[in-house]
């Protein structure tokens, strides 16, 4: 019988798109560091022989698919089309058409926080960092990758389809 604490951690790590730190997990699950370690060990053991794995890099934890399942995951993800949520696709479109662009500028255009979608696109290697903008805070600039071109079957960015609407200001 799984402990409630292990289940809380499982649910949080399940929805998280990036690794979650030990301290944040403890805070959210309402556990002491010691209890948390016990629950993480419990969860890791529970995943043995399943399609998932519990991984950590230092103090950062995440759930991932088991390596043995890679062929099936690849078959699903790589099948015939790129699988991105509408939100991620919108963020990608802003970056593709306006690159190089900072996160704040992307958010100004979309009107919503884009942390998670930028992380998703980075992890899919569709976008990458392109240096820093020479403004206060020197924010990171993002642009699309060559994988992006390959993925969309473009030989260059000039080939991005033109859209009707006139551009709007992106300065936040």
């Amino acid at each position, binding site marked *: 019988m799984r402990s409630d604490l292990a289940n809380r951690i499982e*649910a949080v790590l*399940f*929805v*998280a*798109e*990036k690794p979650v730190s030990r301290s944040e997990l403890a805070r959210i699950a309402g556990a002491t560091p010691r209890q948390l370690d016990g629950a993480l060990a419990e969860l890791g053991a529970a995943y043995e022989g399943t399609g998932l794995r519990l991984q950590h890099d230092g103090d950062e934890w*995440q759930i*991932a698919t088991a390596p043995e399942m890679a062929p099936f*995951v*690849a078959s699903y*993800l*790589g*099948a*015939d*089309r*790129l*699988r991105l*949520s*509408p*939100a*991620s*696709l*919108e963020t*990608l*479109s*802003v970056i*593709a*058409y306006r690159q190089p662009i900072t996160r704040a500028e992307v958010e100004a*255009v*979309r*009107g*919503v*926080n*884009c*942390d*998670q*979608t930028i992380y*998703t696109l980075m*992890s*899919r*290697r*569709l976008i990458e960092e392109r240096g820093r903008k020479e403004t206060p805070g020197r924010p990171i600039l993002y642009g699309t990758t060559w*994988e*992006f071109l*390959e*993925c*969309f*079957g*473009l030989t260059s960015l000039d*080939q*991005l*389809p*033109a*859209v*009707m*609407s*006139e*551009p*709007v*200001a992106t300065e936040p």
Partner: protein
Amino acid sequence: MSPTERHEDAPVIGVRPPRVAVEGFEGPLDLLLELVEEKKLDILTVRLGDLAAEYLARVRALGQLPADEAAAFLWLASRLVLLKARSLLPSLEPIPEEEDAVSEDELRARLIEYAAVRQRAAALGDRLRAGERAFHREGGTVELPPRGGDTDALAAAWSRVLVLAQRQHREQIEVPPERYSVAQRTAEIEEIVAREGSVTFDRLLGEAPTLSFAVVTFISLLDLYRKLAIDLEQDELFGEIGIVRKAPAAAPAARGGGSADRREEKGTGVAGAEKREEGASAERPGE
């Protein structure tokens, strides 16, 4: 003609206490069911015609029914009176013009169904309040080079972003803050409160208020409160603020009301989109 729904949704997502019940009814069926339940009658056996007098009395007491709603309430009242008359004079045969009139059985069936709807809505509401919802993930941690992107979908997403951004932009231009004086906003609020009896602060603000609009609205409320025209209610710290009509409303300001309504309408387009985004963030970790 169907009456229009009275209860407007409080802004979708947000930590707010449940709305205080608004006076009035959702419609003729709602009122009829209320009568049946109040009197602890059995829907299956009660003679609906017997409720005619009481129903009429309640409709009269409702006071301010807009014309189209009044029609629906009165239509049902006339049906009830007819059913009553028939039960008193069993020999009364339906005349041809009455053929489209709803029969006691049909009315009862509708009432039973509506009662089930209300129970179901309450059951769903309980689940919602319990907050035991599920979340899915967007799957962002995959390390595979993607293939098969659709440039048209990408361009369509870009168009969508542009349209939304432009709409927000337009909104800002079309509702310049200086357009709202405290006097004008006060008149608008007075009219809304006179019309609806009560309203929440959030609704007065609309979906995407500019700072000056919010400030002007707030000052107007303080002014109305000072003039003893309204009462303010807040159940808990940071909870929803309710504005309730106090004195019988003065003559509504004809000039101001229009722009408040327009603002609300215009807000809906952008707000709908923003809400979707917010909804998305509540339901999935994508944003």
